[in-house]
């Protein structure tokens, strides 16, 4: 279970105004929730994820995960509980290491590395099994440098890495944005399957309306650092692209969104 309490992050770039990238956000994701988060550029989605992953410090408020108050934990300490896949495949995998060596590092997530042989036979067979079941063919490329795989293949390995040990929370920040549509589709399917099979709690940021409408059991809309919309349960399952459009209209009417933002959202997602 993930809980944010009045989480606030403000940035003041030199010469610029103070930007409240995350402005007093509170919500709870019960264990097993697959939440999809949308919002315009600069609405604070990545900052919010960063404040959960530990790359961004909260100015005020707190973050609780799986019974721990992790507000002051370092990024690498939080990795014991959190699995992450980045937007850029190059940020989440070490290009000069082989696929198997990348998985070996993932297999040490949240535990002392130790001086055992990294690419043991048992790891190799487990890696072949897990990669092969999610992306047939990849299991034959364990000894290849991961930098020589395509972006989509790298993201699938990154997914397997993030979930090698079941994380208390899986964070995905536009992890299909750098891929062509076909590869993005494969990665999304792999994502949905891993989340379902391991019954993971997940928070996925996306700019794709298709993904937002079809995936997950909760929809969060960020706008100007706040949660402008939070739909769960049956309402989320019924939610279609058209519904999203009318939701945006209603938000605009209630003046929570200004006109340009609502137009951008409608263009982006509908």
């Amino acid at each position, binding site marked *: 279970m993930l809980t944010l309490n009045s989480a606030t992050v403000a940035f003041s770039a030199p010469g610029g105004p103070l930007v409240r990238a995350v402005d007093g956000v509170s919500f709870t994701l019960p264990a097993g929730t697959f939440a999809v988060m949308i919002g315009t550029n600069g609405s604070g989605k990545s900052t919010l994820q960063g404040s959960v*992953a530990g790359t961004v410090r909260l100015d005020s408020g707190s973050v609780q995960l799986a019974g721990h108050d992790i507000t002051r934990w*370092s*990024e*690498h*300490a939080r*990795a*014991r509980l959190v699995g*992450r896949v*980045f937007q850029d495949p*190059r*940020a*989440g*995998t*070490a*290009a*000069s*290491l082989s696929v198997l*060596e*990348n998985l*070996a*590092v*993932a297999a*040490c*997530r*949240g*535990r002392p*590395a*130790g*001086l*055992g*042989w*990294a*690419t043991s036979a048992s790891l190799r067979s487990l890696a072949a099994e897990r990669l092969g079941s999610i992306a047939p063919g990849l299991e034959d490329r364990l000894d290849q440098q991961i930098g020589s795989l395509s972006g989509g293949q790298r993201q699938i390995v990154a997914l397997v*890495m*993030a979930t090698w040990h079941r994380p208390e929370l899986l964070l995905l920040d536009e992890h299909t944005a750098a891929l062509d549509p076909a590869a993005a589709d494969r990665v999304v399917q792999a994502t949905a399957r891993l989340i379902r099979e391991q019954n993971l709690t997940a928070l996925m940021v996306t700019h794709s309306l298709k993904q937002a409408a079809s995936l997950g059991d909760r929809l969060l809309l960020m706008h100007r650092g706040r949660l402008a919309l939070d739909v769960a349960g049956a309402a989320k399952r019924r939610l279609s692209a058209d519904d999203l459009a009318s939701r945006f209209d209603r938000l605009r009417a209630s003046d929570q969104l200004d006109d340009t933002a609502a137009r951008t959202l409608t263009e982006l997602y509908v």
Partner: protein
Amino acid sequence: MITLLSTWTFGLALGFVALGVFVSYRLFSFPDITTDGSFTLGAVVATVLLVAGVDPLLATLGGMAAGAVAGSCTGMLHALLGIEPLLSGILLTTALASINLVVLGRSNVPLSGVPTLFDRGEKLLLPLARGLGFAETDAGEAARLGCMLLLAALAVLLLYIFFRTRLGTAMRAGGDTPSMARALGRNTGLLTIAGLAIANSLTALSGALVAQYQGFVDVQMGIGMVVWGMASVFLGAALVGPVRLGGALIGTLAGSVTFRLLVAAALRAGLHPDWLKFTTAAVVLAALVAPRFLVRRPQSQSIR
């Protein structure tokens, strides 16, 4: 014959600097100027211990340990205080210049009459050298070379094994892509500190070996070592091509020996020794720039 053998021995001794630079620069992308200071530090500490009557093996290990401390200091300046890699190394090397002078007591000390690691190795390997058919005049030098070959092989083997363990693999991952290592729970600051400790212990080992081999230590002997190491790493990479860890380590040693042989040939052909460091710098510059002209690749990939 003797000069050829001793060129090989010297090239291998300096090969440990190349291995150190391989670890800091290739694995961690950290251009580590500490190399210049820790080379001298290793030589100075080993010499002082030898003169005090310490066993040569222990004295050499003592030099190595001092290098490891210097490397971790640089790592701490960078990882804990956020100082840039180049500046961290410059600060450490500047500080070490004083430390080296104070520890040694004066600017150079001869090692005559003190038993060194090579005297011991020579005694051990002399029968083998004679057995291999080396003339009596060459056998001693051949035995020293054999001794150096054994040490180099041991170093490459240990480095290979270490960097294929889980900890070593995590270190390589942290050097390659820090964001990935942190997301998987590794403290990349600590990994960098440890990596620089390993790199500088290798460099200091080189200094300790060179001092014992040439029979004296001079506080200036480390100047330009980081560039020498880079030249060897680049030359080694060009020799062996794109290979895995093991091949790259062996290539680095081969690069050092090859570079030493080239230098010897250039000196024999009439290059004035004063121009040596200039030549080394020119070689590194060429190696840094050449990939941009030879292959059309995105710039971010041109070096690594």
